[in-house]
Protein backbone atom coordinates (compact mmCIF):
# COMPACT_ATOMS: atom_id res chain seq x y z
CA UNK A 1 0.00 0.00 0.00
CA UNK A 2 1.22 3.52 -0.76
CA UNK A 3 1.81 6.17 1.89
CA UNK A 4 -1.45 7.92 1.04
CA UNK A 5 -3.44 4.68 1.14
CA UNK A 6 -2.00 3.91 4.54
CA UNK A 7 -2.80 7.42 5.77
CA UNK A 8 -6.39 7.05 4.56
CA UNK A 9 -6.61 3.64 6.21
CA UNK A 10 -5.48 5.12 9.53
CA UNK A 11 -7.99 7.96 9.26
CA UNK A 12 -10.68 5.43 8.41
CA UNK A 13 -9.62 3.33 11.43
CA UNK A 14 -10.14 6.24 13.79
CA UNK A 15 -13.46 7.18 12.22
CA UNK A 16 -14.71 3.59 12.56
CA UNK A 17 -13.66 3.62 16.22
CA UNK A 18 -16.19 6.43 16.80
CA UNK A 19 -18.75 4.94 14.42
CA UNK A 20 -18.65 1.68 16.44
CA UNK A 21 -19.30 3.72 19.54
CA UNK A 22 -22.22 5.67 18.10
CA UNK A 23 -23.78 2.68 16.37
CA UNK A 24 -24.18 0.67 19.53
CA UNK A 25 -25.17 3.47 21.87
CA UNK A 26 -28.67 4.73 21.10
CA UNK A 27 -28.52 7.28 23.94
CA UNK A 28 -25.52 8.87 22.22
CA UNK A 29 -27.32 8.99 18.89
CA UNK A 30 -30.46 10.34 20.52
CA UNK A 31 -28.48 12.98 22.37
CA UNK A 32 -26.88 14.13 19.14
CA UNK A 33 -30.28 15.18 17.81
CA UNK A 34 -31.98 15.94 21.13
CA UNK A 35 -30.41 19.32 21.96
CA UNK A 36 -30.61 20.80 18.46
CA UNK A 37 -34.25 19.66 18.29
CA UNK A 38 -35.11 21.20 21.65
CA UNK A 39 -33.45 24.47 20.65
CA UNK A 40 -35.30 24.44 17.36
CA UNK A 41 -38.67 23.79 19.06
CA UNK A 42 -38.09 26.61 21.55
CA UNK A 43 -37.07 29.09 18.88
CA UNK A 44 -39.90 27.89 16.68
CA UNK A 45 -42.44 29.07 19.26
CA UNK A 46 -40.57 32.32 19.81
CA UNK A 47 -40.50 32.76 16.06
CA UNK A 48 -44.26 32.20 15.78
CA UNK A 49 -44.85 34.78 18.48
CA UNK A 50 -42.53 37.38 16.94
CA UNK A 51 -43.85 36.83 13.43
CA UNK A 52 -47.10 38.35 14.72
CA UNK A 53 -45.61 40.98 17.02
CA UNK A 54 -42.44 42.01 15.19
CA UNK A 55 -42.38 43.49 11.72
CA UNK A 56 -38.69 42.56 11.39
CA UNK A 57 -39.27 38.86 12.00
CA UNK A 58 -42.47 38.99 9.97
CA UNK A 59 -40.35 39.68 6.86
CA UNK A 60 -39.07 36.12 7.06
CA UNK A 61 -40.91 34.01 9.67
CA UNK A 62 -38.40 31.15 9.46
CA UNK A 63 -35.44 33.41 10.17
CA UNK A 64 -35.05 32.56 13.85
CA UNK A 65 -35.47 28.82 13.26
CA UNK A 66 -32.91 29.02 10.46
CA UNK A 67 -30.58 30.94 12.74
CA UNK A 68 -30.81 28.41 15.56
CA UNK A 69 -30.20 25.52 13.17
CA UNK A 70 -27.19 27.22 11.61
CA UNK A 71 -25.88 28.12 15.06
CA UNK A 72 -26.07 24.47 15.99
CA UNK A 73 -23.89 23.60 13.00
CA UNK A 74 -21.17 25.76 14.54
CA UNK A 75 -21.76 24.40 18.04
CA UNK A 76 -22.00 20.72 17.02
CA UNK A 77 -19.03 21.10 14.72
CA UNK A 78 -16.92 22.32 17.60
CA UNK A 79 -18.23 19.73 20.05
CA UNK A 80 -17.73 16.97 17.49
CA UNK A 81 -14.01 17.69 17.33
CA UNK A 82 -13.56 18.21 21.07
CA UNK A 83 -15.56 15.15 22.09
CA UNK A 84 -13.74 12.91 19.60
CA UNK A 85 -10.52 13.91 21.34
CA UNK A 86 -11.98 13.65 24.84
CA UNK A 87 -13.21 10.12 24.11
CA UNK A 88 -9.59 9.05 23.70
CA UNK A 89 -8.73 10.68 26.99
CA UNK A 90 -11.70 9.17 28.82
CA UNK A 91 -10.64 5.73 27.61
CA UNK A 92 -6.92 6.39 28.35
CA UNK A 93 -6.20 5.41 24.79
CA UNK A 94 -3.94 8.27 23.68
CA UNK A 95 -0.74 6.37 24.50
CA UNK A 96 -1.72 3.51 22.23
CA UNK A 97 -2.80 5.86 19.46
CA UNK A 98 0.31 7.99 19.45
CA UNK A 99 2.63 5.00 19.74
CA UNK A 100 0.98 3.66 16.58
CA UNK A 101 1.82 4.95 13.08
CA UNK A 102 -1.09 7.41 13.36
CA UNK A 103 0.24 10.92 12.72
CA UNK A 104 -1.25 13.97 14.44
CA UNK A 105 -2.46 15.54 11.15
CA UNK A 106 -4.25 12.25 10.39
CA UNK A 107 -5.85 12.37 13.79
CA UNK A 108 -7.03 15.91 13.05
CA UNK A 109 -8.58 14.84 9.75
CA UNK A 110 -10.31 11.93 11.48
CA UNK A 111 -11.68 14.23 14.18
CA UNK A 112 -13.02 16.61 11.54
CA UNK A 113 -14.70 13.72 9.72
CA UNK A 114 -16.27 12.52 12.98
CA UNK A 115 -17.43 16.06 13.71
CA UNK A 116 -19.10 16.28 10.29
CA UNK A 117 -20.88 12.99 10.88
CA UNK A 118 -22.11 14.05 14.31
CA UNK A 119 -23.23 17.46 13.04
CA UNK A 120 -25.14 15.98 10.11
CA UNK A 121 -26.95 13.57 12.43
CA UNK A 122 -27.70 16.17 15.10
CA UNK A 123 -28.61 19.24 13.07
CA UNK A 124 -30.01 17.21 10.17
CA UNK A 125 -32.51 15.55 12.53
CA UNK A 126 -33.62 18.90 13.94
CA UNK A 127 -33.87 20.47 10.48
CA UNK A 128 -36.08 17.62 9.29
CA UNK A 129 -38.25 17.94 12.40
CA UNK A 130 -38.81 21.66 11.70
CA UNK A 131 -40.57 20.81 8.45
CA UNK A 132 -43.66 19.12 9.97
CA UNK A 133 -43.60 21.22 13.16
CA UNK A 134 -43.28 24.74 11.74
CA UNK A 135 -43.58 24.24 7.98
CA UNK A 136 -40.07 25.59 7.70
CA UNK A 137 -37.43 23.88 5.60
CA UNK A 138 -33.85 24.98 6.03
CA UNK A 139 -33.11 23.14 2.80
CA UNK A 140 -35.08 25.79 0.88
CA UNK A 141 -32.04 28.03 1.27
CA UNK A 142 -30.61 25.96 -1.56
CA UNK A 143 -26.94 26.19 -2.48
CA UNK A 144 -26.23 29.05 -0.04
CA UNK A 145 -27.01 26.56 2.73
CA UNK A 146 -24.00 24.52 1.64
CA UNK A 147 -21.79 27.62 1.84
CA UNK A 148 -23.20 28.49 5.27
CA UNK A 149 -22.78 24.90 6.48
CA UNK A 150 -19.16 24.66 5.37
CA UNK A 151 -18.18 28.00 6.87
CA UNK A 152 -19.88 27.40 10.18
CA UNK A 153 -18.55 23.89 10.64
CA UNK A 154 -15.03 25.01 9.74
CA UNK A 155 -15.17 27.72 12.39
CA UNK A 156 -16.46 25.09 14.82
CA UNK A 157 -13.53 22.81 13.91
CA UNK A 158 -11.04 25.61 14.54
CA UNK A 159 -12.43 26.28 18.02
CA UNK A 160 -12.72 22.52 18.68
CA UNK A 161 -9.05 22.00 17.84
CA UNK A 162 -8.02 24.82 20.16
CA UNK A 163 -10.16 23.43 22.99
CA UNK A 164 -8.68 19.95 22.41
CA UNK A 165 -5.19 21.45 22.55
CA UNK A 166 -6.07 23.18 25.80
CA UNK A 167 -7.26 19.90 27.31
CA UNK A 168 -4.22 18.04 25.97
CA UNK A 169 -2.04 20.57 27.76
CA UNK A 170 -3.99 21.00 31.02
CA UNK A 171 -5.92 17.73 31.30
CA UNK A 172 -9.61 17.00 31.59
CA UNK A 173 -9.91 19.69 34.25
CA UNK A 174 -10.12 22.11 31.31
CA UNK A 175 -12.94 20.09 29.71
CA UNK A 176 -15.50 22.75 30.60
CA UNK A 177 -14.05 24.97 27.87
CA UNK A 178 -15.54 22.62 25.30
CA UNK A 179 -19.00 23.74 26.41
CA UNK A 180 -18.15 27.32 27.27
CA UNK A 181 -15.88 28.40 24.40
CA UNK A 182 -18.53 28.64 21.74
CA UNK A 183 -20.88 30.69 23.90
CA UNK A 184 -18.21 33.34 24.28
CA UNK A 185 -18.61 34.14 20.59
CA UNK A 186 -22.41 33.74 20.47
CA UNK A 187 -23.36 37.29 21.49
CA UNK A 188 -21.10 38.85 18.86
CA UNK A 189 -21.92 36.44 16.06
CA UNK A 190 -25.21 38.14 15.20
CA UNK A 191 -27.10 34.87 15.28
CA UNK A 192 -30.56 36.21 16.06
CA UNK A 193 -30.05 39.92 15.35
CA UNK A 194 -28.01 41.94 12.85
CA UNK A 195 -24.48 42.94 13.79
CA UNK A 196 -25.64 46.56 13.56
CA UNK A 197 -27.64 45.94 16.74
CA UNK A 198 -24.37 45.59 18.69
CA UNK A 199 -22.69 48.58 20.32
CA UNK A 200 -20.36 50.22 17.84
CA UNK A 201 -17.23 49.28 19.79
CA UNK A 202 -18.21 45.62 19.61
CA UNK A 203 -18.92 45.54 15.91
CA UNK A 204 -15.25 45.16 14.85
CA UNK A 205 -15.08 42.08 17.11
CA UNK A 206 -18.09 40.66 15.29
CA UNK A 207 -16.48 41.44 11.94
CA UNK A 208 -13.49 39.33 12.96
CA UNK A 209 -15.69 36.23 13.35
CA UNK A 210 -16.56 34.13 10.29
CA UNK A 211 -19.92 33.29 11.88
CA UNK A 212 -21.16 36.89 11.87
CA UNK A 213 -20.67 37.07 8.10
CA UNK A 214 -22.55 33.82 7.66
CA UNK A 215 -25.53 35.00 9.71
CA UNK A 216 -25.61 38.33 7.91
CA UNK A 217 -25.51 36.35 4.69
CA UNK A 218 -28.38 34.14 5.85
CA UNK A 219 -30.53 37.18 6.59
CA UNK A 220 -29.68 38.66 3.18
CA UNK A 221 -30.92 35.47 1.53
CA UNK A 222 -34.05 35.22 3.64
CA UNK A 223 -35.09 38.88 3.74
CA UNK A 224 -33.71 40.37 0.55
CA UNK A 225 -33.48 37.21 -1.51
CA UNK A 226 -29.85 37.88 -2.46
CA UNK A 227 -26.70 35.90 -1.87
CA UNK A 228 -23.92 38.24 -0.74
CA UNK A 229 -20.62 37.03 -2.22
CA UNK A 230 -18.73 39.68 -0.25
CA UNK A 231 -19.91 38.18 3.02
CA UNK A 232 -19.03 34.68 1.82
CA UNK A 233 -15.54 35.83 0.84
CA UNK A 234 -15.05 37.42 4.27
CA UNK A 235 -16.14 34.22 6.01
CA UNK A 236 -13.91 32.01 3.85
CA UNK A 237 -10.83 34.17 4.38
CA UNK A 238 -11.38 34.40 8.11
CA UNK A 239 -11.97 30.66 8.29
CA UNK A 240 -8.71 29.95 6.50
CA UNK A 241 -7.02 31.95 9.22
CA UNK A 242 -8.99 30.32 12.04
CA UNK A 243 -8.49 26.76 10.82
CA UNK A 244 -4.78 27.31 10.23
CA UNK A 245 -4.50 28.68 13.76
CA UNK A 246 -6.49 25.74 15.17
CA UNK A 247 -4.30 23.15 13.42
CA UNK A 248 -1.11 24.98 14.38
CA UNK A 249 -2.12 25.24 18.04
CA UNK A 250 -3.08 21.54 18.15
CA UNK A 251 0.19 20.40 16.56
CA UNK A 252 2.29 22.73 18.70
CA UNK A 253 0.55 21.49 21.84
CA UNK A 254 1.10 17.89 20.76
CA UNK A 255 4.81 18.55 20.51
CA UNK A 256 4.74 20.31 23.88
CA UNK A 257 2.88 17.35 25.37
CA UNK A 258 5.69 15.10 24.11
CA UNK A 259 8.25 17.34 25.79
CA UNK A 260 6.37 17.41 29.07
CA UNK A 261 5.44 13.74 29.09
CA UNK A 262 1.72 14.40 29.09
CA UNK A 263 0.59 11.77 26.60
CA UNK A 264 0.79 8.90 29.07
CA UNK A 265 -0.40 10.89 32.06
CA UNK A 266 -3.43 12.57 30.57
CA UNK A 267 -6.55 12.02 32.59
CA UNK A 268 -8.96 13.57 35.00
Amino acid sequence: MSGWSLALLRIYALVTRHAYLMRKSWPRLLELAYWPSMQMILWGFISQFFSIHSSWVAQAPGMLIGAVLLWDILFRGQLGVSLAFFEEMYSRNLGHLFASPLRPPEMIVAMLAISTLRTLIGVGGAALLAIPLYHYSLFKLGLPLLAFFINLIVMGWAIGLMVSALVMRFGLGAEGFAWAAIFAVAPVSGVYYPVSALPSWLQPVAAALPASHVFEGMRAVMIEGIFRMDLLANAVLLNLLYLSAGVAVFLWTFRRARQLGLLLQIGE
Partner: protein
Amino acid sequence: MKNSVFPGAAERIPFPPSPASAQPDAAPAIRVAGLRKRFKNVTALEKVSFDIPANSICALLGGNGAGKTTTLSILLGLLLPDSGTVSMLGEDMLRHRYRVLPRMNFTSPYVDLPKRLTVWENLMVYGRLYGLSRPQKRIRELAEEMEFGDLLERPYGMLSAGQRSRTALAKSLLNQPDVLILDEPTASLDPDMGDRIRAILENYRARSGATLLLASHNMPEVERLCDQVIMMQRGRIVAQGSPAALIAAHGRASMEEVFLDVARAPAPASAKKAAG
Protein backbone atom coordinates in the same frame (compact mmCIF):
# COMPACT_ATOMS: atom_id res chain seq x y z
CA MET B 1 31.82 -12.53 28.35
CA LYS B 2 31.60 -9.29 30.20
CA ASN B 3 28.82 -8.89 32.67
CA SER B 4 29.38 -6.24 35.24
CA VAL B 5 27.79 -4.31 37.98
CA PHE B 6 28.92 -0.74 37.90
CA PRO B 7 27.06 1.80 39.94
CA GLY B 8 26.73 5.09 38.14
CA ALA B 9 28.13 3.70 34.92
CA ALA B 10 27.33 5.79 31.90
CA GLU B 11 29.32 4.05 29.19
CA ARG B 12 27.66 1.59 26.88
CA ILE B 13 28.39 -2.01 27.72
CA PRO B 14 27.52 -4.47 24.96
CA PHE B 15 25.46 -7.44 26.01
CA PRO B 16 26.51 -10.92 25.06
CA PRO B 17 24.55 -12.01 21.99
CA SER B 18 21.60 -14.23 22.67
CA PRO B 19 21.95 -17.77 21.33
CA ALA B 20 19.35 -17.21 18.64
CA SER B 21 21.00 -14.08 17.35
CA ALA B 22 24.64 -15.02 17.50
CA GLN B 23 25.77 -12.62 14.80
CA PRO B 24 28.66 -10.62 16.24
CA ASP B 25 28.44 -7.85 13.64
CA ALA B 26 24.68 -7.47 13.67
CA ALA B 27 23.57 -3.94 14.51
CA PRO B 28 21.60 -3.66 17.73
CA ALA B 29 17.85 -3.45 17.34
CA ILE B 30 17.79 -0.63 19.88
CA ARG B 31 20.68 1.72 20.54
CA VAL B 32 20.29 4.43 23.13
CA ALA B 33 23.05 6.96 23.74
CA GLY B 34 23.33 9.69 26.34
CA LEU B 35 19.65 10.13 27.10
CA ARG B 36 18.84 12.94 29.47
CA LYS B 37 15.45 14.07 30.63
CA ARG B 38 14.48 16.53 33.31
CA PHE B 39 11.02 17.44 34.52
CA LYS B 40 11.36 20.87 36.13
CA ASN B 41 13.82 20.25 38.98
CA VAL B 42 13.71 16.48 38.79
CA THR B 43 16.22 14.55 36.72
CA ALA B 44 14.35 11.57 35.34
CA LEU B 45 17.18 10.24 33.15
CA GLU B 46 20.89 11.04 33.24
CA LYS B 47 23.30 9.79 30.57
CA VAL B 48 21.40 6.61 29.85
CA SER B 49 23.07 4.51 27.16
CA PHE B 50 22.54 0.90 26.17
CA ASP B 51 22.36 -1.43 23.20
CA ILE B 52 19.87 -4.24 22.81
CA PRO B 53 20.78 -6.84 20.22
CA ALA B 54 18.20 -8.06 17.74
CA ASN B 55 16.23 -11.16 18.72
CA SER B 56 16.85 -10.79 22.40
CA ILE B 57 14.62 -10.18 25.39
CA CYS B 58 15.82 -7.48 27.71
CA ALA B 59 14.33 -6.33 31.00
CA LEU B 60 14.44 -2.82 32.34
CA LEU B 61 14.39 -3.07 36.12
CA GLY B 62 14.30 -0.59 38.93
CA GLY B 63 12.21 0.66 41.78
CA ASN B 64 9.38 3.08 41.37
CA GLY B 65 10.69 6.31 39.89
CA ALA B 66 13.90 4.72 38.62
CA GLY B 67 13.25 5.99 35.08
CA LYS B 68 11.90 2.85 33.38
CA THR B 69 8.65 4.31 32.11
CA THR B 70 10.43 7.49 31.05
CA THR B 71 12.88 5.40 29.05
CA LEU B 72 10.12 3.32 27.45
CA SER B 73 8.13 6.46 26.62
CA ILE B 74 11.13 7.94 24.83
CA LEU B 75 11.68 4.70 22.93
CA LEU B 76 8.06 4.84 21.78
CA GLY B 77 8.32 8.48 20.76
CA LEU B 78 5.71 9.54 23.31
CA LEU B 79 8.26 11.63 25.17
CA LEU B 80 11.08 13.77 23.83
CA PRO B 81 14.42 13.66 25.64
CA ASP B 82 16.33 16.82 26.45
CA SER B 83 19.38 15.30 24.79
CA GLY B 84 20.67 11.98 23.55
CA THR B 85 19.86 9.73 20.63
CA VAL B 86 17.70 6.67 20.05
CA SER B 87 18.28 4.39 17.11
CA MET B 88 15.50 1.89 16.54
CA LEU B 89 15.96 -0.80 13.91
CA GLY B 90 18.62 1.39 12.34
CA GLU B 91 16.46 4.52 12.17
CA ASP B 92 16.83 7.70 14.16
CA MET B 93 13.74 7.42 16.35
CA LEU B 94 13.70 11.07 17.30
CA ARG B 95 13.69 12.26 13.68
CA HIS B 96 12.02 9.49 11.72
CA ARG B 97 9.79 7.70 14.18
CA TYR B 98 7.03 7.17 11.63
CA ARG B 99 9.39 5.00 9.61
CA VAL B 100 9.81 2.70 12.58
CA LEU B 101 6.48 2.80 14.41
CA PRO B 102 4.79 0.40 11.95
CA ARG B 103 7.44 -2.17 12.95
CA MET B 104 6.98 -1.62 16.68
CA ASN B 105 4.20 -2.09 19.17
CA PHE B 106 3.67 -1.90 22.88
CA THR B 107 1.41 -2.65 25.75
CA SER B 108 1.12 -1.17 29.19
CA PRO B 109 -1.32 -1.59 32.06
CA TYR B 110 -1.36 2.20 32.33
CA VAL B 111 -2.77 2.69 28.86
CA ASP B 112 -6.17 1.30 28.01
CA LEU B 113 -8.34 0.48 25.05
CA PRO B 114 -11.82 1.94 24.49
CA LYS B 115 -14.05 0.08 26.93
CA ARG B 116 -17.33 0.21 25.05
CA LEU B 117 -15.84 -1.32 21.93
CA THR B 118 -15.73 -5.08 21.70
CA VAL B 119 -12.42 -6.90 21.57
CA TRP B 120 -12.99 -7.50 17.85
CA GLU B 121 -13.73 -3.83 17.17
CA ASN B 122 -10.69 -2.67 19.13
CA LEU B 123 -8.43 -5.05 17.28
CA MET B 124 -9.95 -4.04 13.93
CA VAL B 125 -9.26 -0.38 14.69
CA TYR B 126 -5.64 -1.08 15.63
CA GLY B 127 -5.20 -3.53 12.76
CA ARG B 128 -6.08 -0.73 10.37
CA LEU B 129 -3.94 1.79 12.25
CA TYR B 130 -0.98 -0.53 11.74
CA GLY B 131 -1.81 -0.83 8.06
CA LEU B 132 -2.90 -4.48 7.96
CA SER B 133 -4.61 -5.22 4.67
CA ARG B 134 -6.56 -8.12 6.17
CA PRO B 135 -6.93 -7.44 9.88
CA GLN B 136 -9.77 -9.97 10.24
CA LYS B 137 -7.45 -12.85 9.31
CA ARG B 138 -4.75 -11.74 11.72
CA ILE B 139 -7.25 -11.27 14.56
CA ARG B 140 -8.62 -14.78 14.05
CA GLU B 141 -5.08 -16.18 14.05
CA LEU B 142 -4.26 -14.42 17.29
CA ALA B 143 -7.57 -15.38 18.87
CA GLU B 144 -6.90 -19.01 18.14
CA GLU B 145 -3.29 -18.91 19.26
CA MET B 146 -4.01 -16.95 22.43
CA GLU B 147 -7.32 -18.66 23.14
CA PHE B 148 -9.57 -15.66 23.33
CA GLY B 149 -11.99 -16.43 20.52
CA ASP B 150 -14.86 -16.48 22.99
CA LEU B 151 -14.07 -12.90 24.02
CA LEU B 152 -14.13 -11.31 20.60
CA GLU B 153 -17.71 -10.07 20.79
CA ARG B 154 -17.47 -8.88 24.38
CA PRO B 155 -16.94 -5.21 25.26
CA TYR B 156 -13.38 -4.62 26.41
CA GLY B 157 -14.67 -2.91 29.54
CA MET B 158 -16.49 -6.07 30.60
CA LEU B 159 -13.36 -8.21 30.64
CA SER B 160 -11.39 -9.35 33.69
CA ALA B 161 -7.85 -8.05 34.25
CA GLY B 162 -6.36 -11.19 32.72
CA GLN B 163 -8.62 -11.03 29.69
CA ARG B 164 -7.76 -7.37 29.19
CA SER B 165 -4.06 -8.19 29.37
CA ARG B 166 -4.49 -10.86 26.71
CA THR B 167 -6.43 -8.43 24.52
CA ALA B 168 -3.80 -5.73 24.94
CA LEU B 169 -1.08 -8.24 24.16
CA ALA B 170 -3.00 -9.35 21.06
CA LYS B 171 -3.18 -5.70 20.02
CA SER B 172 0.57 -5.44 20.46
CA LEU B 173 1.15 -8.50 18.26
CA LEU B 174 -1.26 -7.48 15.47
CA ASN B 175 1.45 -6.07 13.21
CA GLN B 176 3.98 -8.80 14.11
CA PRO B 177 6.38 -6.16 15.41
CA ASP B 178 10.15 -6.40 15.13
CA VAL B 179 10.42 -4.52 18.41
CA LEU B 180 7.90 -5.14 21.15
CA ILE B 181 7.90 -2.93 24.22
CA LEU B 182 6.05 -4.21 27.24
CA ASP B 183 5.45 -2.28 30.42
CA GLU B 184 4.69 -4.79 33.21
CA PRO B 185 3.07 -7.34 30.89
CA THR B 186 1.92 -9.60 33.71
CA ALA B 187 1.10 -7.02 36.38
CA SER B 188 -1.94 -7.97 38.48
CA LEU B 189 -2.41 -11.31 36.74
CA ASP B 190 -2.88 -14.61 38.52
CA PRO B 191 0.02 -17.09 38.19
CA ASP B 192 -1.75 -19.14 35.55
CA MET B 193 -2.48 -16.18 33.31
CA GLY B 194 0.97 -14.73 33.93
CA ASP B 195 2.50 -18.02 32.87
CA ARG B 196 0.40 -18.14 29.70
CA ILE B 197 1.44 -14.65 28.72
CA ARG B 198 5.10 -15.43 29.31
CA ALA B 199 4.73 -18.49 27.08
CA ILE B 200 3.14 -16.37 24.36
CA LEU B 201 6.03 -13.93 24.52
CA GLU B 202 8.64 -16.69 24.42
CA ASN B 203 6.94 -18.30 21.44
CA TYR B 204 6.64 -15.02 19.64
CA ARG B 205 10.30 -14.20 20.05
CA ALA B 206 11.36 -17.71 18.99
CA ARG B 207 9.14 -17.65 15.93
CA SER B 208 9.56 -14.07 14.76
CA GLY B 209 13.09 -13.17 15.80
CA ALA B 210 11.70 -10.00 17.35
CA THR B 211 13.40 -7.95 20.03
CA LEU B 212 11.49 -7.56 23.28
CA LEU B 213 12.10 -4.91 25.91
CA LEU B 214 10.06 -5.17 29.05
CA ALA B 215 9.78 -3.33 32.31
CA SER B 216 8.85 -5.66 35.11
CA HIS B 217 8.79 -6.03 38.85
CA ASN B 218 8.41 -9.77 38.58
CA MET B 219 11.88 -11.19 39.06
CA PRO B 220 11.12 -14.87 38.34
CA GLU B 221 9.61 -13.65 35.08
CA VAL B 222 12.80 -11.76 34.28
CA GLU B 223 14.93 -14.82 35.02
CA ARG B 224 12.77 -16.99 32.85
CA LEU B 225 12.36 -14.69 29.86
CA CYS B 226 15.30 -12.37 29.62
CA ASP B 227 18.70 -12.69 28.03
CA GLN B 228 19.74 -9.38 29.51
CA VAL B 229 18.81 -7.01 32.27
CA ILE B 230 19.33 -3.30 32.66
CA MET B 231 18.96 -2.06 36.22
CA MET B 232 18.13 1.56 36.84
CA GLN B 233 18.22 3.70 39.91
CA ARG B 234 17.31 7.36 40.04
CA GLY B 235 17.47 7.83 36.33
CA ARG B 236 20.78 6.08 35.80
CA ILE B 237 21.85 2.65 34.72
CA VAL B 238 23.56 1.03 37.68
CA ALA B 239 23.99 -2.53 36.45
CA GLN B 240 23.53 -4.58 33.34
CA GLY B 241 24.19 -8.08 32.18
CA SER B 242 22.51 -11.44 31.92
CA PRO B 243 20.40 -12.52 34.91
CA ALA B 244 22.86 -15.32 35.71
CA ALA B 245 25.83 -12.96 35.58
CA LEU B 246 24.16 -10.38 37.77
CA ILE B 247 23.20 -13.01 40.32
CA ALA B 248 26.79 -14.29 40.34
CA ALA B 249 28.28 -10.80 40.54
CA HIS B 250 26.16 -9.97 43.58
CA GLY B 251 26.73 -13.35 45.19
CA ARG B 252 22.98 -13.86 45.46
CA ALA B 253 20.62 -16.71 44.77
CA SER B 254 18.05 -14.94 42.63
CA MET B 255 17.25 -11.78 40.70
CA GLU B 256 14.84 -10.88 43.48
CA GLU B 257 17.79 -10.54 45.87
CA VAL B 258 19.87 -8.67 43.29
CA PHE B 259 17.00 -6.29 42.75
CA LEU B 260 16.76 -5.58 46.47
CA ASP B 261 20.52 -5.02 46.68
CA VAL B 262 20.43 -2.51 43.87
CA ALA B 263 17.21 -0.81 44.89
CA ARG B 264 18.38 -0.35 48.47
CA ALA B 265 21.93 0.65 47.67
CA PRO B 266 22.74 4.31 48.28
CA ALA B 267 22.49 6.38 45.16
CA PRO B 268 25.77 6.91 43.33
CA ALA B 269 27.35 10.23 44.22
CA SER B 270 26.83 11.54 40.72
CA ALA B 271 23.15 10.67 40.93
CA LYS B 272 22.47 12.22 44.31
CA LYS B 273 20.51 15.07 42.75
CA ALA B 274 18.67 12.79 40.41
CA ALA B 275 15.30 11.30 41.13
CA GLY B 276 12.87 9.53 38.88
